[in-house]
């Protein structure tokens, strides 16, 4: 069943009198419970696509249907309510949190705003969320600045699943983490998907990461989607020069060994 369909999305930025086509006529679909890996060199427009999907910036042209609704037509309180269904995890594990926040307040906000559980049950729900992402409930009272990068990303994931979303957009969500932590976070994401049927749009410049989690992979190059296919198709038999360049950038693909992270699960 199609959860998300993006049609002919375009976006230009004008910076210093120069026009940049950050997105040019991008179309793709995403099924419920599916992971689409979005790969591309830096500056190819991945974050722009993620931000338009999250309604953080407007698109110039194109349509987005999400969960049976015209996603770009939603505004005001209606949009804020629907946002519960589409969540995001950011790359910058520090910048994505208000420096004054505590772990509890980070998780309390979505629960409060969307009335996920009654007020008196929120502390219990926060403990459950922390437990689900592999953190002890005693973390709740800590300042967000007092926990490590990997733990912060677990908290970001807990915040994203707090509203019980259908789709989570992950923009370079593991790129800033140590390789050892990265594998554990990817495992957690795959587990959550199997358990709750969440769809992921997994943005990364690193094909090795995407192969570990993606059902399908879409390749972006200079604002265009140049190739889409199953993870295996794109990696074993790339059609575009952009995909070939990205594969060449991962040494272990060339030698055929796969390191650290769990193998991909093709659909």
């Amino acid at each position: 069943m199609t959860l998300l369909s993006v049609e002919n999305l375009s976006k230009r930025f004008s910076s210093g009198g120069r026009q940049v086509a950050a997105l040019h006529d991008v179309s793709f679909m995403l099924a419920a419970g599916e992971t689409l890996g979005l790969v591309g060199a830096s500056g190819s427009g991945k974050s722009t696509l993620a931000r338009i999907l999250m309604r953080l910036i407007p698109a110039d042209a194109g349509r987005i249907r999400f969960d049976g609704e015209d996603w770009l037509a939603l505004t005001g309180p209606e949009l804020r309510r629907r946002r519960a269904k589409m969540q995001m995890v950011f790359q910058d594990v520090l910048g994505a949190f208000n420096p004054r926040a505590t772990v509890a307040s980070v998780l309390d906000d979505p629960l409060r705003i969307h009335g996920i559980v009654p007020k008196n049950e929120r502390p219990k729900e926060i403990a459950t969320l922390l437990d689900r992402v592999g953190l002890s409930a005693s973390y709740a009272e800590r300042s967000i600045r007092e926990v490590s990068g990997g733990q912060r990303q677990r908290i970001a994931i807990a915040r994203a699943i707090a509203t019980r979303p259908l789709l989570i957009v992950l923009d370079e969500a593991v790129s800033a983490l140590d390789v050892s932590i990265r594998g554990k976070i990817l495992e957690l994401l795959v587990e959550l998907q199997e358990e709750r049927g969440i769809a992921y749009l997994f943005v990364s410049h690193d094909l090795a990461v995407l192969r570990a989690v993606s059902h399908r992979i879409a390749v972006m190059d200079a604002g265009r989607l140049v190739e889409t296919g199953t993870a295996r198709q794109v990696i074993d038999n790339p059609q575009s020069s952009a995909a070939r360049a990205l594969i060449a950038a991962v040494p272990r693909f060339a030698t055929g060994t796969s390191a650290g992270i769990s193998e991909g699960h093709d659909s």
Partner: protein
Amino acid sequence: MRLIRNLIRTPEGAIGLGILALLVLIALLAPALSPGDPLKIAARPLLPPFTDVNFPLGTDRLGRDVLAGIIHGTRTSLAVGIAAALAAIAIGLCVGLAAGFAGGLVDEALMRVVDAFQIVPSFLLALAFVSVIGASVPVVVLAIALGAWADPARLTRAQVLSIRERDYIASARVIGMHPVEIAFKEILPNALPPVLALSAIIVAAAILTEAALSFLGLGDPNVVTWGSMIAEGRNILRSSPSLSIFPGIALVVTVVGVYLFSEGLTNALAGRRSEA
């Protein structure tokens, strides 16, 4: 609390805080430290300093106690300085927040007004204001605030514009937080610290401006101020320099104290951020 601990860990913060605490204490306890009206004649005129234990700093041309004047002058200087800074910060915050949040035409218009106030030298502005309306403490406070609100307004706006682009604001929008809640809970508390650090410098400038206005005879005539004491002493600077020197020292110590405090505060705030 942690901020205060960080503040006194730096030498400038500790000294600044010490000086300010002492001055505040003197200002608060002025009626007890030196009872009675400091503008009243207390002894024979032009008593030299360090000769009479009852008047350690001597008396002026009219026989008024210099130490009493300095103690009560602390009240005026601090009160005017702090009140003017509070007013300037309050106006600056409101204008800066409005400009930063509204953007577009409102932002343009407000920032042109800020430009206008920044171009006019603030002392001239205060001078003109007091000359036209008349000298009294509230007018002096307002006159100084008028010349000082542009900097905090500009800084507040810059802070709002920069914080608005941070990921944590995007993250707040993503979870469906109401824009008003984002403004007051996510942006404002993080925009404030640098503006508050600026306030110490505004206090120092305000104290100097007040002294300068009083020196020119444009202060409130019904209260003692260091500026008016210096002006009084100026006429007999050669025979009794101490009359100008003592209030001058008080002024310098206060301004240096405020500057050190602001320096320490800025470092403490920066340290708190880099700790993260």
